[in-house]
């Protein structure tokens, strides 16, 4: 089934993130990165199929018994979980790097920093 709503949301988040990426303020650039990675996560999860949460669909088995039920795709969830954690590391690092740049150069203007090269 095609996914117009998901496609719209992912597209909109990508567009907003890109717009922020192109700002001159480094802090806003970091926001842009964060939004783009959120959008990518939603997209990845969508590839596994979205089903309203419930006892049967959550990828947690009820028992140790035979005959496991069909749940939502656990593989994409594992991938997204990794991506969230890595995205956190990246955002935190980019933020501290920006902070450090500000301390050194007294500015967060990416254009001004670029001109100093």
């Amino acid at each position, binding site marked *: 089934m095609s996914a117009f709503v998901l496609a719209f949301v992912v597209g909109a988040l990508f567009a907003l993130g890109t*717009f922020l990426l192109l700002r001159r303020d480094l802090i806003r650039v970091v926001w842009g990165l964060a939004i783009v990675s959120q959008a990518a996560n939603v997209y990845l999860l969508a590839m596994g199929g979205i089903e309203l949460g419930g006892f049967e669909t959550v990828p947690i088995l009820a028992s140790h018994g035979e005959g496991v039920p069909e749940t939502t795709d656990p593989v994409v*969830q594992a991938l997204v979980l990794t991506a969230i954690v*890595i995205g956190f590391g990246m955002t935190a690092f980019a933020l501290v790097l920006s902070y450090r740049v*500000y301390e050194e150069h007294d500015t967060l203007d990416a254009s001004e920093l670029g001109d100093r090269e």
Partner: protein
Amino acid sequence: MPPELSVVLAVVTAPFAVAGVTPLLIRSLGEKTGYAGAAVAAFCFALLGTQYGSEGTVELAWIPSLEVALRFYVDGWALLFALLASGIGALVFLYSPAYMHGESGLARYYAALLAFMGSIIGIALAADLIAIFLFWELTSLCSFVLIGFHTDDASSQYAARMAMLVTVGGGLFVLVGFLLLAFVAGDVVGPGTSAFDLAAMLNRPDEMQTALREAGLFVPVLGLLAVGAATKSAQVPLHFWLPNAMAAPTPVSAFLHSATMVKVGVYFVGRIRPLFASLEWVMLFATLGLATMTICALLAVAATDIKELLAYSTASHLGLMIAGFGFTSIVGAETGVFHLFNHALFKAALFLIAGIIAHETGTRRLDELGGLRHDLPVTAFLTAIVALSMGGIPPFSGFYSKELLFEATVEASHHHDLGPLDWLYPVVAVFGSIFTVLYSLRFLALFFGRQPDSLDHVHRPPVILLVSPAVLAALTAVVSIDPELAVRAIVQAGIDATAVDPGTHEMHVGLPTSYSPAVGMSAVAIGSGVLAYPFYDSIHRSIRSIPRTVPPIGANWWYDAIIERLTDDGAWLASRVHNGLLRTYATWTLTATCVLALAGFVATDAAIPTALAGLDVPIPAALVLSLAVVAGLAVVTADSHVAGILTLSILGFMIAIFYILASAPDLALTQLVVETLVLVIFLLVVEEIPEYYEVSLGRIARDAALSVLVGATAFITVLLTTDARPVGESAIARYYTEHAVPEGGGQNIVNVILVDFRSFDTLGELVVIAVAAISILTLIVMRARGDETRSDESSVAIEDAEGGSANEPRESHETRGESE
């Protein structure tokens, strides 16, 4: 007799192995390393000698899945070339220590020279197209290092770059030609044999040619391989790198011009000759060769420098060999093989002699040299043998092979219908030969006539410098006296391998005893050359004046124009794409990605699904997601940092709720923790930074357009990919679901995947987080420490430079180093 794999491998690998330990040899032997190199070359020569008379293929598996093997094919032609490379290599190594006395960078010199020799032997013996290509490019690489040996000399750098660009570029043509050849060969050589096996193709020349023609690839493959051979063997109009390559030290020139690099193209043309022999072949190579022979002979007469003269003469003689191989008759093969052999001997000797002259007189200019026979009598005697051989004067060795060329040009019309080329080929061959006679006499004349006054102190060369040219001149003399000896020893075997219908003809050469067209042509060429010699200076001047009046006629002019244009365009492009601004990089990267992705969709005719079958996500999830988008909009429009951070958090928490609704509780938990942490960190950092507002809004429209492009690409991609998703559970998901409890012992499948099935991935993830944490710690903590050391240093700097101004640049330099 089949060849021995171990021996062949030893021959090919020994030079490379010793090249690797050259720095150690230099440390223990110093300048005498050259003799060690000579020993290696002699070792290779001797090992190759043990394979004399053998023929066959040996191979060592290399990349079995791609059918690529280190496959070597030994026959008379391969042995001839490999023996020349190692034999002349040994003499060049013997000559080097005395010539290179006192130079620095000897480790680089000897290592590159050894690797160079190894690559040439590799090309000679390799029978696998991939291996041939690798050795082919290795020779280009080694010659780059050798030509550019004087790294601080601009002309040397220029020549090295030129040789590299031309020959490596030609190598790429060869690669494409090889791939097409292998594509066709796959069907011809049949299953069980690799499509890259050149020896197998050579066993079925007629079938290969038919298959190539049926595939319509005959002319393209021939053309591609010809471009490669022409760049290596300096054929017009790609000959210009060779005279420039004389910037290399003279022993390198001797090696490069006689037995190695430039012969690779000729060798290869001889090798593939049986596969391609046809009318097109004649038209291409005979024309190319004769044109090169004539034009480069003219340029050699125009030369003002003894090495330049020899360099152009090399190109001219290469043209002769190519032309010889270009004629499909057996005489053509005889010309190519015999002249390759003769030329290697006399040209190596001539370059080594040029080295002696330059070494002892301190100049290489033709007009400053003369009358050297008094000071250099032995050298003069050696020069007489080899220079007359180069000029093709009977009874010297060059005469026999040139006579064969004349015969081949006359005979050409017996084999193919050539139209006007029928008489043009012999005429051009004779015309070019007149100039060969002229420049050969000119070189010899260095030793005769009056000695210019500027040359008052000419030293006698050390005996060791004379050994190598003497050996080569002696061999030339032997071939001159008894050419049949050389033919029986090695040349006949080479002809059998390169002839179109081998084994049908026995070669005989000797001084002519009766009149034939070839004898007449020789007489005309030599007679005209000798008669024209008194007018050498005016001929020299008139040829020189041509490129000065019409610059585009010189190949160098084209090369310079193209390189200059490429450099300018490259600089312009770099200034546009790489200007130090983050937004520029982001713009180019994002635009390129989007355009490529969309182009991919268009190219594959992907249709955007239009069937709107209700909502694809549950309504609560859709609501939460639209809230996230609204939060995103608020982030973009936020006018203060705090507002932006809070709205960004709303976005994150909305996504977390979406995860809950989308049956992903683990993701939701992680997302909640991460969002909380990010919020805290953002607030901590922002507290330290003053509010910052966008200064200019000038680029808003452009940025918005790019954002819409990215968003649209993402939209289309999601639509297309989710639509193409297979229905139902994937096999891999099923596997993990079923095995979670029995193998992982856990009911939470996602967790079991992360910590059991894919635990190494999780370990990698943890490493990333740890590295990020350490980096953050470093960035924050080291700042304080950096301040301490900097204040220490700057106090010293102030003392030294009496003032704060000297300390300013140092500070900025240091901080940049740290932030990297």
